[in-house]
């Protein structure tokens, strides 16, 4: 407790006028040293928490009051010890008042300007800072324990603590000489009061301090008689808690000791700052990792979505399942060179009006996705055209027009064979075959020796589809009798290289076909042709599409039974298909 004359000095005219709202006895003010006032270097605003000092008018107000404080940084060093402490200032002030009794309680009480909102906001900001440092209820930490132990040793006191003041408690981050205690209530007088000031609090004898005397640590079994504390002040000015030294006997400490305590509090502050920045780094790292993880998951989801979309789209590009055409055996083979299973080859068989069916097979110039988009356009155009006009040359003409209307005109064209199947009386079919620049289909018919005769079905004048506006298409009609077959293919077959490096070519294909025996079965024809392809090296270079039609003989296919075994299989390709996915039917 500072001596009375100091008390009077601290009550610099301005302070007192401010605190008491101007109603201050002049004799108090008169004793304020001129020199002290002149040396005032900084004015700091702070708030008092409710103080309950019995018999004390000001404390009894329980109102936080706003005041200013002198000589914070420098000024009169000898006096500043006492002045720097908020609690002490109040105590000294009150002590001074009560001792001088020059000012009636009632005279001063109403004059104190209540400023509760300010105190509340200061405490709220302080608590926000406490939470920001995220130190409450953390496990013991050697750094803080050492500060407490060091304080105890330096001050030669039995108890030294590092405390953080929470909303409703005082939590011990480190407690030297107080084993087993982790927190105490926020009773005024000691820590709870010390944390309200930027200055070091020193209470040489707690029993003489009007507030501290009733603190449980003082009044209780522990019997604290000496208390000193330095607030732990963050860089932005928030007091998180205090570094405290306690003794069971009264004592005085020097200003140098008080500075030491301040330094220890600063060490704790630095430690907390380091910890906070480490936390920031860790949190930033965690956030980064989380963001990366989220990005990765998003990318995977996107990838899956794209794959699903591509798969759906791809199914529209792959030739559909062959339909059942009464009296006809159908078989096909489809393989793409691209791993995406989309290609430039296409085929389709579908029923049209009048019990007839139409079929086509072709090859879009190019490979992969680019070609596939034309493939799709081509397929739908031909299907639509056949519904309008079943004439095969008309269908190719429509396709030619459609492709020429396309934005990428001149680069997207195809070769195609389009056929119309009209059931004939003999159980066979009349086939009208139009060609648009496509290699000839092969007509296989039994010869006298049990073998087959192979005839290239050429239509004179058929041109590339989609390349020339003036393109002409020609058609030919043939009869597909029972036992006979028709093979349509793309150049992936005829341009396949044999082991000696030569292309299979038309001659190779006709030779191969000529070795077959009658009657012709579409299924067997495709099977064997695929087997031939499998013997050739490097066939994954190009797309290949094969379509075979055959009319079963009466004994092979009893009347009334549709022979669709080879077209019954679903065309869906496995999703994980790799390069050169092959779709074979059957």
């Amino acid at each position, binding site marked *: 407790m500072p001596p009375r004359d100091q008390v009077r000095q601290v009550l610099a005219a301005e302070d007192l006028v401010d605190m008491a709202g101007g109603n201050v006895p002049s004799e108090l003010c008169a004793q304020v040293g001129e020199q002290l006032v002149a040396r005032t270097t900084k004015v700091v605003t702070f708030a008092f928490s409710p103080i309950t000092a019995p018999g004390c008018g000001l404390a009894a107000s329980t109102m936080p009051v706003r005041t200013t404080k002198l000589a914070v940084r420098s000024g009169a060093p000898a006096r500043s010890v006492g002045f720097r402490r908020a609690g002490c200032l109040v105590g000294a002030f009150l002590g001074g008042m009560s001792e001088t009794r020059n000012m009636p309680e009632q005279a001063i009480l109403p004059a104190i300007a209540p400023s509760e909102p300010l105190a509340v906001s200061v405490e709220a900001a302080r608590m926000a800072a406490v939470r920001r440092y995220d130190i409450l209820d953390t496990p013991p930490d050697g750094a803080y324990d050492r500060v407490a132990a060091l304080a105890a040793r330096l001050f030669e006191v039995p108890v030294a603590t590092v405390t953080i003041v929470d909303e409703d408690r005082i939590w011990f981050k480190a407690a030297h000489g107080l084993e087993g205690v982790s927190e105490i209530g926020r009773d005024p007088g000691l820590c709870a009061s010390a944390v309200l000031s930027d200055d070091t609090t020193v209470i040489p004898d707690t029993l003489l301090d009007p507030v501290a005397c009733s603190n449980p640590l003082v009044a209780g079994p522990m019997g604290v008689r000496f208390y000193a504390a330095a607030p732990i002040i963050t860089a932005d000015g928030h007091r998180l808690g205090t570094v405290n030294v306690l003794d069971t006997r009264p004592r005085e400490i020097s200003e140098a000791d008080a500075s030491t305590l301040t330094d220890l509090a600063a060490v704790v502050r630095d430690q907390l700052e380091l910890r906070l920045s480490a936390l920031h780094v860790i949190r930033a790292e965690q956030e980064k990792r989380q963001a990366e993880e989220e990005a990765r998951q998003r990318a995977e989801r996107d990838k899956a979505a794209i794959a699903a979309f591509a798969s759906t789209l791809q199914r529209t590009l792959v030739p559909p399942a062959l339909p059942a055409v009464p009296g006809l055996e159908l078989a096909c083979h489809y393989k793409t060179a691209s791993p995406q299973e989309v290609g430039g080859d296409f085929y389709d068989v579908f029923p049209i009006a009048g019990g007839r069916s139409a079929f086509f097979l072709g090859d879009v*110039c*190019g*490979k992969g996705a680019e070609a596939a988009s034309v493939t799709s356009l081509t397929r739908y155009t031909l299907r639509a055209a056949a519904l309008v006009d079943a004439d095969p040359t008309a269908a190719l003409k429509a396709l030619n027009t459609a492709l020429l209307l396309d934005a990428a005109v001149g*680069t997207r064209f195809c070769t195609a064979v389009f056929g119309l199947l009209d059931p004939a009386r003999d159980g066979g079919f009349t086939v009208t075959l139009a060609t648009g*620049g496509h*290699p000839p289909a092969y007509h296989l018919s039994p010869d006298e020796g049990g073998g087959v005769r192979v005839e290239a079905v050429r239509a004179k004048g058929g041109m590339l589809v989609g390349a020339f506006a003036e393109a002409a298409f020609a058609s030919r009609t043939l009869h597909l009798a029972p036992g006979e077959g028709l093979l349509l293919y793309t150049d992936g077959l005829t*341009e396949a290289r044999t082991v000696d*490096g030569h292309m299979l*070519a038309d001659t190779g294909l006709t030779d191969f076909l000529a070795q077959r025996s009658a009657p012709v079965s579409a299924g067997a024809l495709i099977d064997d042709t695929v087997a031939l392809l499998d013997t050739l090296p490097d066939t994954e270079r*190009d797309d290949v599409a094969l379509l075979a039609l055959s009319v079963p003989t009466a004994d092979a296919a009893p009347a009334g039974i549709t022979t669709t075994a080879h077209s019954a299989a679903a065309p869906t390709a496995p999703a994980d298909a790799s390069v050169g996915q092959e779709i074979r039917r059957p």
Partner: protein
Amino acid sequence: MTDAFHIDVPHTDGALAVIALSGEFDIAAAPAVRARALELIATGHTDLVADLSGVTFCDSSGLGSLVGIWRCAKDADGSLTLAAIPDRLSRLLSVTGMDTFLPAYSSADAALAARQGNRTTA
């Protein structure tokens, strides 16, 4: 087995230019042929003669680039003439009907002569 594909322009004369191709004229070679030819057209050589004597193989992509070049030449009021077509390619041109649109000559010289107005070699 795959020959390196070559594109040469051995002769230019006003609007005329000979573009000589050799090797496998497939999907790998087609874009370069197309690009080179369009470049010639863009620089005023709108009457192109494609010397195909060195072409060992031509697939639909090769045909495609010929069609593309033919279109661009036509748009520039020019022409595309084929010369020295190998047998197999000749059949392909016939199958696709392209021979009805693209005049063909036995050699580049014959094609040039024809293009220059001396039509005795046609």
